[in-house]
C-alpha cells in the first residue's frame, strides 16, 4: 500500500542552523513527491515538488529537497533556518489508484530557538 513516513514528530533547531526533515515513501510506480508547509492558522502551502528530471529540486523560501530512489526518500533541507520557518511540514506523494489522490505523512513540527 502507498504510504509516507516522516520519522520525526518534532524537531528543534537554532536560528541560523541548517535543517533536514526526513521523508520516506512507499509506492510501486514513479513517485510524484511534494513538500507542504502549514503555518499557524493557515492552510497548507506547497514548498516544492518533484516528478521528473533533476533529483535536487528547489522550492520557495530557500528550501530544497533531494529525491533518492534507492532509499525511497525525499528529504527537505534548508541551509539556514529563520524564526519564521517555525511551522509544520508535510511530505506527500501523488498516487494513481484509478483516481488521483495525494497521500500525506503525519507531519514534522519545526521549532526554531533564538
Amino acid at each position, binding site marked *: 500500500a502507498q504510504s509516507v513516513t516522516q520519522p520525526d514528530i518534532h524537531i528543534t533547531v537554532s536560528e541560523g542552523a541548517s535543517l533536514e526533515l526526513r521523508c520516506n515513501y512507499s509506492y510501486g510506480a514513479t513517485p510524484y513527491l511534494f513538500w507542504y508547509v502549514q503555518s499557524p492558522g*493557515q*492552510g*497548507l502551502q506547497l514548498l516544492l515538488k518533484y516528478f521528473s528530471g533533476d533529483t535536487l529540486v528547489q522550492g520557495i523560501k530557500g528550501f530544497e529537497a533531494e529525491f533518492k530512489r534507492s532509499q525511497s526518500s525525499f528529504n527537505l533541507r534548508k541551509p539556514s533556518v529563520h524564526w519564521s520557518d517555525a511551522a509544520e511540514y508535510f511530505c506527500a506523494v501523488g498516487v494513481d*489508484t484509478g*483516481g*488521483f489522490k*495525494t*497521500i500525506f505523512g503525519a*507531519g514534522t513540527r519545526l521549532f526554531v530557538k533564538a
Partner: protein
Amino acid sequence: EAGVTQFPSHSVIEKGQTVTLRCDPISGHDNLYWYRRVMGKEIKFLLHFVKESKQDESGMPNNRFLAERTGGTYSTLKVQPAELEDSGVYFCASSQDRGQLNEKLFFGSGTQLSVL
C-alpha cells in the same frame, strides 16, 4: 485572487448532533478535495470532486458522512450524527489541473471539529 475558504473555522458539537462544513474553492478550479487530520496523525484523503461529480470517495469513513457539490462551485461536508472519533481538522483543497499526479493543491485553513 481569493484562496480556498472554509467555514466555520471551528465547530464544537455534542455527540449525535449534525454539523455541516463548507468549502469555497478558488474560482475556476474544477477539482475539489476533502481531507481530514485526526489528532496529529497523517492528513487522510476523504473524497475528490470534479465539478459536481464525485470522482473518488474511497476515503469517506462511513455513511454518516455526506459530501455535495451542487453546481460545481462550493462544497459541503455533512456529518450526521457526529461521533467522538469524527473530531479533527477537515481540510478542503482545490486544483486547476485535470487531476494529474503532479498537480498543485491549494488548501483552505481547515475546520477544527470537536465532538464532545
